[in-house]
C-alpha cells in the first residue's frame, strides 16, 4: 500500500533521512522504531506532504505522492495523527471530529463516521460538547485517532500515541489500534516503546540516525534483544 524508496529529507543542509526504504503492505500494522531524534516523525511528515523530500520516492497505492500537497494526500486516504496529539484545543470534540472529515465533507457521511468513532471510543461521545483542550491526555489521544479516522483512511499513521500517557491508558489505546486494524485499516505506527509496539505489529523497522538499521517480522526483532538495546537504549 505504501512504499518508500530511497527517501532523503532535510530541514537544512544535513539530511535527516538518508535513503530509507520501507514498505507497508495492505491490512498490516507496521512499526517504525527508533530513539528520540532518529527521524521517525520526519518520515511521517514526508509521507503526509508536510515536508518535500530532497530525493527518492513515496508511492501510495502505486501512485507517487512525493512532494504532493497535504490536502491531496489526505484526500487519497492517508491520515496522519501527529506527535503530541495536536487536537484543536478550543474546538469541541464534535468540531474536532468534523475537521477530520473536512476534505470530503458530506453531512450524512460525517454522521456515520462519527457514530463509528463513538463505537470505538464511547468516552468521546460522553464528551461530545466539551472543549478538547480541557480533556485528559488519554482522551485527547482518543480524539486525535478518532479525528484521523473521520475521512475513512486507507492508511492511518500514528506518531507515538503512547507519549506521556499512563500505562493503563496506553494499553487501552493499543487495544483500539488493533481493533481499527482488524476493521480493515492499514496502520503505520511510530513508537519509542518497542515492547508495546511489537506487541501489536506484524513487521518492524528500526531507524537509527536517519538510516534503517534493521527490519524484520515482529518476532525476529523482538528476539534480538541486544540490538534493540543498542538502538533504543534502556530495558527492552
Amino acid at each position, binding site marked *: 500500500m505504501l512504499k518508500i524508496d530511497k527517501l532523503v529529507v532535510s530541514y537544512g543542509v544535513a539530511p535527516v533521512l538518508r535513503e530509507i526504504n520501507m514498505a507497508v503492505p495492505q491490512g498490516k500494522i507496521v512499526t517504525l522504531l527508533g530513539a528520540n531524534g532518529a527521524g521517525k516523525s520526519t518520515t511521517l511528515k514526508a509521507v503526509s506532504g*508536510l515536508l518535500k523530500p530532497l530525493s527518492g520516492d513515496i508511492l501510495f497505492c502505486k501512485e507517487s505522492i512525493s512532494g504532493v500537497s497535504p*490536502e491531496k494526500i489526505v484526500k487519497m486516504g492517508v491520515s496522519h495523527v*501527529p506527535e503530541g496529539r*495536536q487536537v*484543536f484545543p478550543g474546538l469541541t470534540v464534535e*468540531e474536532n471530529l468534523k*475537521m477530520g472529515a473536512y476534505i470530503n*465533507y458530506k453531512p450524512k457521511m460525517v454522521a456515520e463516521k462519527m457514530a463509528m468513532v463513538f463505537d470505538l471510543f464511547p468516552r468521546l461521545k460522553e464528551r461530545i460538547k466539551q472543549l478538547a483542550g480541557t480533556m485528559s491526555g488519554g482522551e485527547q489521544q482518543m480524539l486525535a485517532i478518532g479525528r484521523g479516522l473521520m475521512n475513512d483512511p486507507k492508511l492511518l499513521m500514528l506518531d507515538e500515541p503512547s507519549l506521556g500517557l499512563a500505562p493503563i491508558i496506553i494499553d487501552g489505546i493499543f487495544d483500539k489500534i488493533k481493533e481499527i486494524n482488524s476493521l480493515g485499516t492499514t496502520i503505520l505506527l511510530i513508537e519509542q516503546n518497542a515492547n508495546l509496539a511489537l506487541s501489536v505489529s506484524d513487521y518492524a523497522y528500526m531507524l537509527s540516525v536517519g538510516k534503517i538499521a534493521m527490519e524484520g517480522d515482529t518476532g525476529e526483532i523482538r528476539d534480538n534483544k541486544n540490538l534493540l538495546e543498542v538502538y533504543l537504549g534502556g530495558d527492552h
Partner: protein
Amino acid sequence: MSLVTFVQLIIQGLNMGLIYALAALGISLIWNATSLFNFSQGDLLTIGGYVMLTAFSYLALPYPVAFLITVVVMGVAGYMLSKGYFYPMFKQNFNPQIILIGTVALSIFVRNGILLTWGPDAQTYANPFGSKAVEILGVNIMPHYIWNVVIVAVLVVALQMFLRGTVIGIAMRAVAQKPVAASLMGVKVEQMVSMTFLLSTGLAAISGLLVAPIIPLIPEMGGLLAIKAFAAVLIGGLGSFAGALVGGVIIGIAEVLFATLVVSTYKDVFIFAVLILFLLIRPGGIFKADISEKV
C-alpha cells in the same frame, strides 16, 4: 444632569462603541489567525466610508444595495491584501516587525490614495434613517442609533453562526489554533487566512459606513478610530470575541461621558489613560482570551 440626558449620552456612547467594536473584532480575528496586526485597518475603515459615499451619495443607490456593495468591495480588497501581501510574508517567515512596518507604509499609501481620489474636504451623506428623533419613554433617540444597534447585533449573531455552525467557520478557528494540524486535515491555511482578512476588512468597512453620518469623512480619520479600536481590543482581551465587543462599548461610553461631563478637548487623552489603567490592573484584558474564546 437629568437622568434623561444621562440615558441619551449612554445611548450615544453605545453607538460609537459598537462602531469601534466592529473594527476591534476584525483586529482580533486577524490576530488569532496570524499573530499580527494590520496597522492599515483604520484606513481600510476610511475607504469603506468613502466607497459608501460614492455608492449611496454620488451614485444614489438605495441604502441596502450601497451597503452590500461596500462590504463586498472591501471584503475582496481584504482578501487580495492577504493573498498579495500578508500571506506571502507570513509564509516566508518574515520577521513580524517587518510585516507590521509594511502595514504602516500601506496605511500612508492608502491615505494618500483616498486624498487623490476623493479630495481633502470633509464629506458626508444624509443620514439614511432620517434625522428626526423618536421619543421612547421620554428619551429622544436618533433613529440611526437604534438602527446601528440592530445592524451590529445582526452582524454579531451572523458571525457567530458562521464561525461555529459552518465547516468553513470551524476550519478558520482550527487554523487559528493549530495551523499544521489543520493542514493535515486538508484545510488550506492560506485560504483560511485570506478569508479572515476578508471578514476583518468587511467589518472595518461597516464601521466606516456607519460612522460617516456621525463623523464626516476625511482621508486621515481612520487613524484615530483604529487606535480606539486597538484600545478596545486590549481592554477587552486580545483575540477574544466578547472582549472586542465589551472593550468597544466601554471606550465609546467612557469617551462620550468624559467629553460631556469633563472636557471634550481631552477625550482622546482620557481614553488612553483608561487604556493604560486597564493595562496596569489587568494586562490580559477583561476577557483574557483563553482557548475557548479564541475566534
